[in-house]
């Protein structure tokens, strides 16, 4: 090699050092690029972003008639209930009075807010107490055994 011929063994060591430095740092660089990209592509534990539609963790059979359950709809609380007649309905669980979380009252057969005794019927309409407007209603679809709740329309 030119360098060897020109000035002897000192430059060979230096060349080997630079080769080693280049090789190792290039390898490190490639790893520093590939590691994040590979981790990025591997799907995270929660595979989907919570959008306008949420698949519930429990099935339609897990919900007895005349009961209700709170679920997470993106960043809001939702209430899923099964009417005494067996129909699944879902509403925003945020009370329209002062934002408390409502619940389903099996003894009253309708939705109730514990904070100031507000009552909503099975269609979400405000029927007694302070709440000024009905609860926001969601669409419920059952696909196989899965319940999918989505925004109306």
């Amino acid at each position, binding site marked *: 090699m*030119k*360098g060897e011929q*020109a000035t002897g063994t000192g430059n060979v060591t*230096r*060349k080997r050092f*630079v080769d080693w*430095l*280049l090789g*190792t*740092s*290039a390898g*490190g*660089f490639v790893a*520093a690029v590939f590691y994040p990209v590979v981790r990025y592509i591997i799907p995270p534990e929660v595979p989907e972003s919570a959008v306008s539609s949420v698949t519930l963790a429990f099935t339609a059979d897990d919900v007895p008639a005349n009961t209700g359950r709170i679920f997470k709809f993106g*960043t809001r*609380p939702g209430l899923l209930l099964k009417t005494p007649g067996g129909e699944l309905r879902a509403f925003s669980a945020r009370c329209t*009075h002062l934002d*408390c*979380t409502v619940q389903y009252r099996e003894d009253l057969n309708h939705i109730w807010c*514990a*904070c*100031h*005794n507000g009552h909503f019927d099975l269609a979400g309409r405000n029927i007694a*107490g*302070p*709440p*000024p407007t009905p609860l926001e209603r969601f669409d419920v679809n059952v696909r196989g055994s899965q319940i999918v709740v989505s925004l109306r329309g």
Partner: protein
Amino acid sequence: MSGARVAWTVTVAALALVPAAAGAQTLPTSEDCRDCHLGLPDVRLSAPARSYEGDVHAAAGFGCLACHGTGGADRLDPAAGFLSAPLRGEIPGMCGRCHSDAAFMRQFDPGLRVDQVAEYWTSGHGERLRDFDDPGVATCTDCHVAHAIRPPDDPASSVYAANIVATCGRCHADPQHMAGRDIDTDQVGAYRSSVHGGLLFDDGDLSAPVCNDCHGNHGAAPPGVASVRNVCGQCHSVMADYFDQSGHAEIFNASDLAGCALCHGHHAVQPASDETLGERSVDVCLTCHTPPDTLGLEFERMQAVLDTLEMARQASLRVLEEAENMGMEVSQALFELGDVNNIQTRAHSAIHSFRVDPVREQVTAGLEITTRAEERGLEALGEHRFRRVGLGLSSVVIVLLIIGLLLRIRDLERAEEA
């Protein structure tokens, strides 16, 4: 009968009819009342005629004579029933002529109640009027402003939800007017400073209780001591249920202590605050729960338990906000932490059982949430640190690579020069 006699009888009979006919043509109508009164210089006489156009009775087709007149030929004859300016004691009866007649009211507003006058006589106002003929007491026209009556859902009405406080306060907040009667005059001021007043006047929340929600409308009277729990419990039903379970209802009634109002006051109800929880027990509970009975300090135990939850919530919030300020995405964790507000509401309701265990139950559930939130926050902070460390390491690698390249470039050029 001779012909002359017949002619004379007919003439006299005809002449006798003339005054009657003349009288029938000149009977006054409600329009006549209005036209005349509008032109009168005394404002006390002209104002009613001006304002009556907006009155709900005018819209229903009732004129002045419907209330003030008798409908007969002697319309303006007091002896025949003409009420020019009725006496205070006559007013409920005057209004009740129609408003207590179900068949009559059905023709105009079938949903309207017809027991207002009956209720009125049971009220504090009605009793004083009937028993003492108190000239300063409220009658129908004092609250429902005479000649400008509007239905309660009309925002211009004196009995619209937002205007009721002013209507009642016209008398009840006037010390001169209330002088000699054994009633305070601070209710309006106290109410305005209360949480209910704040909701009504500051937030425009018409569902907030006003005077008639607790005292009744036409049967207005202070609720009895034993009824305070029921009145507050119309909205605050969860607290009322806990209160029932506490067993204190009968004890309070027996001692003539007004349940909720004992701790919360009646007109100046303040929002619940944890800081005063322990102090309150000193005032109230220790009066009966004297040592060796330790239950009087139950509120202090409750306060300690509630404090742990609030401090945990604030600590978790601080961690999450710190992570958020660093640019980390923690909106889901913040949302889940918001659930603690619901739990704190439930815990405050449980206070009314006057035992610490139900409160502790709620607080334990809340602490699970705060712990999880704090974990998420610390995770985010750790991730942030990891990013800095990762960046440092990557930068070192890149710098080494750059140095290697620069050395290689120098070597190449040196080799070519040689």
